[in-house]
Each structure stands twice: as structure tokens, then as C-alpha cells.
């Protein structure tokens, strides 16, 4: 008895010591890599372009790196996401007992992501890309003992490698047609090769960015990955898919023809609407955020498509605004999505729940996390004072100012695009109200939610840093004016107009229209205070304020089960968009034996699966399985048979080579 009591504190100390050092080292290293990334990235954006060639690192081809404004922008953005995530990871890893492997891979993953935009040649780019994919895969599979994680990891592995194959093929065609390995040395390619590269790289980069129909890994991998990893993937890694499209398709091969613009616009619009629809009916908090990433990447693709289309139609000013919208929204999305996943992670760490239907009432138990998630949700809903507002405003402005140069394609594409963006914003508001309102307000819907504890200081510090970024981007996007101008100048589609009007008051370059997010915030605060003062009227005659029970239409004892849940909150939207979402609902009524009219129990089951995944992926998987089964017949395990195959193979090679 004494022995055991003596041994326990010692064992705890060992665990505590392990928990103390490992997460701190990993987290701080990640943040340090992030700080270095921000530093290098800003040097790339603001300074003169620099190139580095390291021949000894990889035999034969070497590693070619360069810093230019476009790459620097993405390096700085990735680094900026890694800083809060690193700080957050310290506390998260302690609570969730992350192992040595994910902790040591975390900084490597950030470093690999920083390397991708710095690559100056096709071979280096592919190397960095694969390094990033492998590192992210290890992190997704960190808690692989749970079956859901295992299947999500396999799914992610397959999709990311297929995407890599598409990029590999695309860049090989580019390299062969352009006659060089380094991006800077590529010569003009033939139209056929150009089209092939566009299609292949769009598929590859689109799958990384989560564009339809290659989005299916996002809602599966994001919920199962540890939350800091989800934040890194959703706020930094998917951006690199967009980077690939801008760098390869819009810069090296650009400015693209009109149909590239229309393609990007259509894919983006469909992704945005589909993503937000799924988000507005999702009940898993992290799945909802993952679908919101699909939505926002869709909006960015719409902006890229609009920029291409407008530039090809001769509307240089509007094209510049569209490209600025893409970059600004990318930055805003990185800020609020990073914060969103981190806050969801702190809920998950203390309650073990991601299911909104069982959360609720967190505002009283964890007020800081609630406020921080609120900031993220406001950003994601694209409302004024949120980090996503300015980007979406610029996007809509670029679309409505296309008309003076109108061609029929443009005259039809812009209203539809505005409609899609507007529907996305509207449904995005609904999704985020659900995530915040049902998840954090009202009363707890389960014991785990009722016993939630506030996150530790390191997690709160990381989240507060991300929230500060959200607020700054929402009220003072002017901080990005200089970097934005440098980047816009190097992308062909947006090089036509000078975007210097984007100051405190955002004056559109060369177009009529203005908006001032900072002043809007100031005046709104003044107006709210004025309203508060107005409501003081007559307060001297009032009795003293009181805290009383809810009226609730006279109901006596409300239980938490009587509240609206995420499922019921999203039900009207689910019914309106029934044809797209195809929900499977199942109502089972059990009656008493005495009479079929006396109901004993009603069971309601609803499942909303990803329709596209069922329609597009299942047949492919079935076909692959079918082929694999066919090949298995030739694969009996007999050594004699294999020797025959070998001999036949050599024979064929000899015949062909002769």
C-alpha cells in the first residue's frame, strides 16, 4: 500500500516532466519557424528578388530557391499562421497527450509549407510539395488508433497522392514544353501544352485547395486531425493550392484566355455554394469548419476566375480589384479559420465533443474561448466588422464593375457569380450563427458540455494572437496595402491598374465606389452607445432591475432537451435545399401493444452524406476494386508462375528493344 502511494507521484512526475518539455519545445520551435517565415516572406515581398541554388543537397538537380513578392506573400502568410498555432500546440499537446512523432513532425510540416512558395524550379517545387504532403499525412494519422482516424488518413493519403500525380504530370509537360527546369528560364509553350498544363495543374492544385469535385478529403481529414494540425491545414496548406494556381497558371502561363477564367469562376461558384450548404446543415463543429473552408476557397477561385476573365475582356481596373479580393480574402480566411479550428480544438479538448447537438452553454463555462470563437465566426460570416467582409466586398465590387467592357459572356457570368457569392454569404451567416449560437450559447445539452473547463493560458494566448489578426484585418486592411501592391504588380492579370486607392477609405482603383471598414467600426460603436444612452430614457422611474426565471410561454420546468439543436436549427434550410443535399431521414414510431394510436417511442434518424462523394467517388472506388480483384487472380503466390511472368517480361522487353 505504501509502495503504491509512493510510486504514483513519481510516475506522475515522469509524465508531467515529459508533458512539460516535449510540447513546449515542439510548440516553440513551430512558432520560431513561423516567425522566421514571416521575416523571410516580408523580405521577399518588400525587398528585391533573390535566388539561391544549393547543388549539393539533392544530387543531379539541386535545390533552387527564390524570393519574389508572390512567393514571399505566401511564405509570410504561412509563417503568420504557424506562430499562434505553435503557441497553442503547447497547451493542446499536454491536454490531449500527443505523442513524440506528431510533435516532432509539426515544425517540419510548417517548414515544408514554407519551402513550397520558395521553390524556383519544377523539381524543387515537386520535392517541397511531396514533403508537405507526407508531413501532413503523418499528422492527420497522429491518433490512428481510432478507426475513424485510420480511414480518414487513408482517404486523405489517396487523394493527396492522386493530386500530386496530376501536378507531377502537369509540371513535367510544362518543363518539357518550356525547355527548362527553373521557372524563370521557361520559354513560351505551345497552346496545346498550355491547355494540358492548365487542366492537370487545376485538378492537382484544386484538390489541395478543396475545390469541387475534389474536396472530399477536407470534411474527412480535418475533423479527425488534432486541432492545431487542422488549423495549419485549413489556414495554410489549402492556401498553397491557390498559390499553385496563381503561380503556374496565372503567372507563368498567364494571363490566361477567357475560358480559363470562366472555368475557374464556375468551379469556384459551385464549390462555394456546395460547401456552404453542407456547412449550414453540418452538426459536427470541425466538419462545419472544413466545409466552410471549401466555401471560402471557392470564393477565392471565383475571384481568380473573375480576374482572369476581366483581364481577358479588357477591364484592367476590375481585374486588379478581383485579384486584390482574392489575396485579401485568402489572408482573412487564414486568420479566422485558424482561430476557428483552434477554438473548436479547445472545446474538443475539454469536453471531448465535436457534435453541436450535444454542446451548448459554453459561454458561461469558458467565456474567453466563446468570445474568441465569436470573432472567428463573425469573420467567417462575411459581415461588417468581420475579417472576411473586406475581401468579399472587393469581390462583389469587381464583379459589378465589369459592365462597361461587356461581352455576352461577361454580361451573363457576372450576375450569376454575384448571385452565387450572395447566396454563399447568406448561408454562411446561417452556418456560423448555428456554430456559435447552438455550440456556445443557451444551456448545455450534455454532461460533458456542462463540465467544460476554460482552456489553459498557452492555448488562450495562441488564440488571442489569431483573434488580434482577425480584428486588424477587419478594421484596418490598410496594413496589407503595400504588400498587396507589390504582389498585384507581378501577376499579369492584375498588373494593369494601380491599386494605390486602397487606404483607410477603400477607393477602388479607376472605378467609382468606396467603403471604409475602420470608420464603419468606429461609427457603429458610436451608434450602439447612442442607442444605449437612448434606452436610459425614463430609467429613473423604473423599479430596481431583477433576475427572474424565463417566461418561456408559461412553461414551468424547461429541460435542456427542449432547446433547439443544430439539427433542428438547420432543418428549414435542409428542407429548402432538399434536392441538393438529399438527406436520409428515418422516422420510426413504436406504438403500445394496447392500441396503435398510443405512441410509446419515436425514433428519428437523419444522415446527411456528401452527395458528390457518393455519386462520383463510389463508382471509381468500385471500379478500382473490381480491377484489383481481376489482377489478384493472376497473383496466386506460386513462385513458378512468377518466374514465368519474369521470363515473359524479359522476352517482351527483348522483342521491343530489338
Amino acid at each position: 500500500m505504501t509502495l503504491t502511494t509512493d510510486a504514483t507521484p513519481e510516475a506522475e512526475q515522469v509524465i508531467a516532466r515529459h508533458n512539460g518539455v516535449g510540447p513546449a519545445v515542439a510548440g516553440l520551435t513551430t512558432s520560431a519557424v513561423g516567425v522566421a517565415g514571416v521575416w523571410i516572406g516580408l523580405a521577399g515581398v518588400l525587398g528585391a528578388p533573390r535566388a539561391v541554388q544549393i547543388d549539393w543537397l539533392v544530387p543531379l538537380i539541386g535545390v533552387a530557391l527564390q524570393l519574389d513578392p508572390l512567393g514571399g506573400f505566401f511564405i509570410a502568410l504561412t509563417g503568420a499562421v504557424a506562430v499562434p498555432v505553435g503557441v497553442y500546440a503547447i497547451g493542446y499537446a499536454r491536454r490531449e497527450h500527443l505523442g513524440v512523432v506528431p510533435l516532432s513532425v509539426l515544425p517540419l510540416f510548417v517548414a515544408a509549407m514554407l519551402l513550397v512558395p520558395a521553390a524556383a524550379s519544377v523539381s524543387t517545387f515537386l520535392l517541397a510539395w511531396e514533403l508537405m504532403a507526407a508531413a501532413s499525412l503523418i499528422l492527420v494519422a497522429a491518433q490512428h488508433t481510432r478507426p475513424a482516424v485510420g480511414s480518414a488518413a487513408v482517404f486523405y493519403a489517396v487523394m493527396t497522392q492522386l493530386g500530386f500525380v496530376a501536378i507531377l504530370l502537369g509540371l513535367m509537360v510544362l518543363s518539357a514544353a518550356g525547355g527548362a527546369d527553373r521557372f524563370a528560364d521557361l520559354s513560351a509553350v505551345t497552346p496545346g501544352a498550355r491547355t494540358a498544363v492548365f487542366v492537370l495543374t487545376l485538378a492537382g492544385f484544386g484538390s489541395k485547395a478543396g475545390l469541387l469535385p475534389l474536396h472530399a478529403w477536407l470534411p474527412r481529414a480535418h475533423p479527425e486531425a488534432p486541432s492545431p494540425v487542422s488549423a495549419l491545414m485549413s489556414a495554410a496548406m489549402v492556401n498553397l493550392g491557390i498559390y499553385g494556381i496563381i503561380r503556374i497558371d496565372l503567372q507563368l502561363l498567364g494571363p490566361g484566355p477567357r475560358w480559363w477564367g470562366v472555368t475557374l469562376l464556375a468551379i469556384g461558384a459551385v464549390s462555394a455554394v456546395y460547401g456552404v450548404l453542407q456547412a449550414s446543415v453540418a452538426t459536427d463543429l470541425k466538419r462545419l469548419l472544413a466545409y466552410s473552408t471549401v466555401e471560402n476557397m471557392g470564393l477565392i477561385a471565383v475571384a481568380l476566375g473573375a480576374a482572369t476573365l476581366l483581364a481577358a475582356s479588357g477591364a484592367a481596373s476590375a481585374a486588379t480589384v478581383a485579384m486584390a479580393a482574392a489575396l485579401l480574402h485568402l489572408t482573412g480566411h487564414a486568420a479566422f479559420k485558424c482561430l476557428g479550428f483552434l477554438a473548436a480544438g479547445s472545446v474538443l479538448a475539454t469536453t471531448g465533443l465535436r457534435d453541436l447537438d450535444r454542446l451548448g452553454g459554453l459561454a458561461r463555462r469558458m467565456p474567453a474561448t466563446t468570445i474568441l470563437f465569436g470573432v472567428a465566426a463573425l469573420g467567417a460570416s462575411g459581415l461588417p466588422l468581420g475579417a472576411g467582409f473586406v475581401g468579399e466586398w472587393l469581390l462583389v465590387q469587381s464583379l459589378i464593375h465589369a459592365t462597361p467592357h461587356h461581352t455576352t459572356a461577361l454580361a451573363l457570368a457576372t450576375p450569376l457569380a454575384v448571385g452565387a457569392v450572395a447566396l454563399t454569404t447568406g448561408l454562411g451567416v446561417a452556418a456560423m450563427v448555428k456554430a456559435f449560437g447552438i455550440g456556445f450559447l443557451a444551456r448545455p445539452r450534455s454532461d460533458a458540455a456542462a463540465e467544460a473547463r476554460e482552456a489553459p493560458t498557452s492555448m488562450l494566448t495562441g488564440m488571442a494572437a489569431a483573434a488580434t489578426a482577425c480584428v486588424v484585418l477587419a478594421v484596418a486592411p490598410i496594413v496589407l496595402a503595400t504588400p498587396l501592391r507589390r504582389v498585384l504588380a507581378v501577376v499579369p492579370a492584375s498588373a494593369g491598374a494601380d491599386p494605390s486607392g486602397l487606404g483607410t477609405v477603400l477607393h477602388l482603383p479607376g472605378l467609382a465606389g468606396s467603403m471604409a471598414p475602420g470608420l464603419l467600426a468606429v461609427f457603429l460603436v458610436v451608434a450602439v452607445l447612442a442607442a444605449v444612452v437612448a434606452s436610459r430614457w425614463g430609467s429613473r422611474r423604473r423599479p430596481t432591475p431583477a433576475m427572474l426565471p424565463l417566461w418561456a410561454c408559461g412553461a414551468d420546468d424547461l429541460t435542456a432537451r427542449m432547446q433547439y439543436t443544430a439539427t433542428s436549427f438547420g432543418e428549414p434550410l435542409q428542407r429548402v435545399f432538399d434536392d441538393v443535399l438529399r438527406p436520409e431521414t428515418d422516422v420510426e414510431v413504436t406504438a403500445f401493444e394496447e392500441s396503435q394510436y398510443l405512441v410509446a417511442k419515436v425514433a428519428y434518424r437523419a444522415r446527411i452524406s456528401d452527395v458528390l462523394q457518393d455519386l462520383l467517388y463510389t463508382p471509381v472506388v468500385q471500379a478500382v476494386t473490381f480491377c484489383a480483384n481481376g489482377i489478384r487472380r493472376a497473383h496466386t503466390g506460386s513462385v513458378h508462375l512468377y518466374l514465368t511472368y519474369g521470363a515473359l517480361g524479359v522476352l517482351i522487353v527483348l522483342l521491343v528493344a530489338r
Partner: protein
Amino acid sequence: MNLMSYLAGAAQITGVALGAPLVIGVTRQVRTRLEGRVGGGVAQPWRDLRKQLRKQQITPHGTTAIFTAAPPVLAGTTLLIIAVAPLVATGSPLDPVADLFAVVGLLFLGTVALTLAGIDTGTSFGGMGASREITIAALVEPTILLAVFALSIPTGSSNLGAIVAHTIDNPAQAVSLPGVLAFVALVVVIVAETGRLPVDNPATHLELTMVHEAMVLEYAGPRLAMVEWASGMRLTVLLALLGNLFFPWGIAGPDPSAMDVAIGIVAIAAKVAVLAVLLAGGEVFLAKLRLFRVPELLAGSFLLALLAVTAANFFTTRA
């Protein structure tokens, strides 16, 4: 822009803030008279507000700061919209701060605040109202933005002052095909957004059919007064905006004299009064739609707005 512009701005804020309960009073009075009842008079909403403001401030158990903050946020966003909108004069000092898209954003910010307050109470009716309100709001958004788009095509800007000034210079604009289509779409949207018939019944006493009222069931006393006042202001400013976007005559210019401002005030008051009477008169003949028929109505208005934009895209030559 001169001193009178600021005066005009102050006049429109005070005018809407004080006049909003009267607009509600007018709609109720028209309705009661058409239904053959006597009614409480146009000033009754003001008397209600005064009564509620003197009542005890009640905070229900289990609610958070969201519940407390929602009414001021709703009122604040509405006040800011009033300050930005060109109601009395076109050259509002705040005109460059927010364009029509930002105004729509502010409108939604108010809606979201009230929705969250409805969820925050933790009652089934609060959640129900919130869920319905946000569904309608989400479906209204595309129509609003497309109608704004259609209005901004001839002007080349989505800033409100520019649109109004352009319509004054080109009166034919108001009766052009895109103009009419956008007008109808906006009317449907305003009806949906302010919770009037046939989307929502502002006079309902049956919880199961409520949308807006279900969210605010837990409010009482001064907070209820603020919600009702803000809702009245939303209706008033949207009607005034509708009036000035399509029939801007009488509005003072960017550099007005005292006489212009006086004419502007009278003109906007007359427009809002006429629109309020028409709205209430129309409501007498309408029954509330089933909730799941509302999306069909909104889809119809979306189509009108889309047609308006397409028509404007093809038929407009910019001045």
C-alpha cells in the same frame, strides 16, 4: 458639402428615430380602419414605448451578455444605416464610409444579433424563431445584392448618394425595365426582411406561426422597447430608401440651402407615409404564407432581380 449637409444628416437621424413609431402607428391604423375597427390612433406605438421604458428591467436566468447586447446592436446598426442613407440630402458626410453593400451587411448584423439572442434564451420558441429568421435572411441576401447590382449598373457605383443623384439626372431610369424589375424585387425583400405579411405576421399571438416575435418573446420592459423601436426604424429607413432610390425627387443636393433641407424633410416624410399606407393597405388582402412557401416567393424575387441585372447589362449605355 457644407454645414447644412450635417444639419440634414442630423435631421434625418432625428426624424427617423422619432418618426419610426408613428410609421408603425400609421400601418396599424390603416389596417384597423380597413378592417372596420377604430384602432388606437397613430401615436399608440409611442405610448407603448413610453410605458415599456418605465417598466422594470428584467434579465432572465441563464442568459448571457448576448441577450443584453442584442437590442442596442440592432438599434445601433439601424442608426448607422439611417446616417449613411441619402434620405434628406444626397451628400451625407458618411456616404464614402459605406456603400449599399455595406448597408446590407449592417442590416444583417442586426438580424444576427437578434437571432443569437433568441438562441441564447435556451427556449424552444427562441430557437425556432432564430432558425426561421436566419433561413429567410439567408435566402433574402442574394436578391438584395442582385437588386443593388442592377441599381448600380447605370451609375457605375454602388454608393447610395451616386445612385440617387444619377436617377435625378436621368428620370427615365426609374421607369426603365431594369428599374421596375429591381423595384419589385426590392419590395419583396423589404417585406421579408422587416417581417411583414405575407412572410411574417407582425400582429400574431400564436407562437407556432411566429418568426420575428418568437425570437423576442423573452424581452420585456425597456429592452423590448428598444427592440420594437429598432424594428420600426428598420421598416422606416428601408421604406425611405426605397422611395429615394426609385423616386428621388424633392431630395436636397450635396450642397443644400436651408430651404432645400426643409423641402427634403417634407418630401421624405410624404414618401414614407404614402409607402406605409400602401404597405398596410396591401397587407389587408394577404394571408400569411406557410413557412415553406416563403422560399418560393423569395426565389421569384431572386429571378426578378437576376432579370433586372441581365436587362441592365444588355440595355444600359452608361452616361
